[in-house]
């Protein structure tokens, strides 16, 4: 029983097995039969003994979109790395920051984690709090001087979110069995929320102006 259970887990986790295998081979730096077989054994053993939530039904990787995501990420890294460095040099103590609330459209643990991770990688933005239930990120952004900057930051994170959703997107919490027919890249997988818009006005802002001192 448990045997079949763990065999099923290995089958559901084959991307993880493949990745661990690749990692093993890369770390050994050679491709001999011993390394290959040993790596596969170790990978399967690791996946079987640690129960992680399966990523496969929830995410469908699209290589092209992942490439675009990575290129965009590198560009962000350079651009905002330079910005933060310049802030440190030019303003230092007199720099200006803000915590921006970013409503997200994706609704899966994996995608929200990915968006939060990537947001924090890019310099100048740092996720301080994740509101999982309301699908919100609270992002500390470094050079923010006025309202335009706030909106720009919010849009930047949402652009990133869109890229992530395109790259591995399904956005459902756990995919049902009929999920794999989603070839269409146009359908991004996240639920269309009518109250959501990419503009500065978000779904529940009416009292926002009042609560800001």
């Amino acid at each position, binding site marked *: 029983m448990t045997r079949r259970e763990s065999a099923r887990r290995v089958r559901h986790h084959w991307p993880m097995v493949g990745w661990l295998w690749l990692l093993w081979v*890369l770390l050994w730096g050679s491709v001999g039969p011993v390394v290959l077989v040993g790596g596969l054994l170790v990978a399967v053993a690791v996946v079987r003994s640690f129960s992680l939530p399966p990523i496969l039904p929830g995410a469908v990787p699209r290589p092209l979109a992942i490439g675009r995501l990575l290129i965009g990420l590198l560009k962000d890294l350079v651009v905002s790395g330079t910005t933060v460095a310049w802030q440190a040099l030019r303003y230092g103590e007199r720099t200006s920051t803000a915590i921006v609330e970013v409503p997200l459209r994706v609704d899966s643990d994996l995608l929200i984690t990915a968006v939060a991770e990537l947001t924090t990688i890019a310099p100048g933005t740092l996720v301080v709090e994740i509101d999982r239930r309301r699908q919100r990120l609270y992002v500390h952004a470094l050079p923010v001087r006025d309202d335009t900057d706030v909106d720009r930051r919010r849009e930047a994170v949402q652009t990133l979110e869109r890229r992530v959703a395109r790259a591995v997107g399904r956005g459902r919490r756990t995919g049902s069995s009929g999920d794999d027919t989603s070839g269409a890249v146009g359908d991004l997988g996240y639920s269309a929320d009518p109250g959501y818009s990419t503009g500065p006005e978000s779904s529940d802002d009416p009292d926002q102006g009042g609560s800001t001192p």
Partner: protein
Amino acid sequence: MTALSDVITAVLLPAGAVFCLLGSVGLLRFPDIISRLHAASKAQTLGLLLILVGTAVQLPLRYAPVLLLVVLFQLLTAPITGQIVGRTAYRVQAFDRGPMFRDELADRLARDGTPVDERPPREDADR
């Protein structure tokens, strides 16, 4: 071929070093913990990335994947610590509201009836 790779290395290594240096400058000059995290974890990540790419060009091709792994795990792990520290700093109010232009998290908490500013401002702040 070697001339080209030498040029790439000669550009990337100092550039990476400069970013690391600027990260340290930011660490010193930014006003509070969260801002410093920006400098500490980010500028340095970019610096390390540049340095590793600059190094990879000089090495035989079979070492490149290992350097790539270093980059990857740096990119994967740095944000996690950054986020944990930032979150903790926010929760214990160990940061400066002075440079903050807007705080929508505080707005949200105030709306939900859990104001963040309940505690008196710290008097024993180190700066």
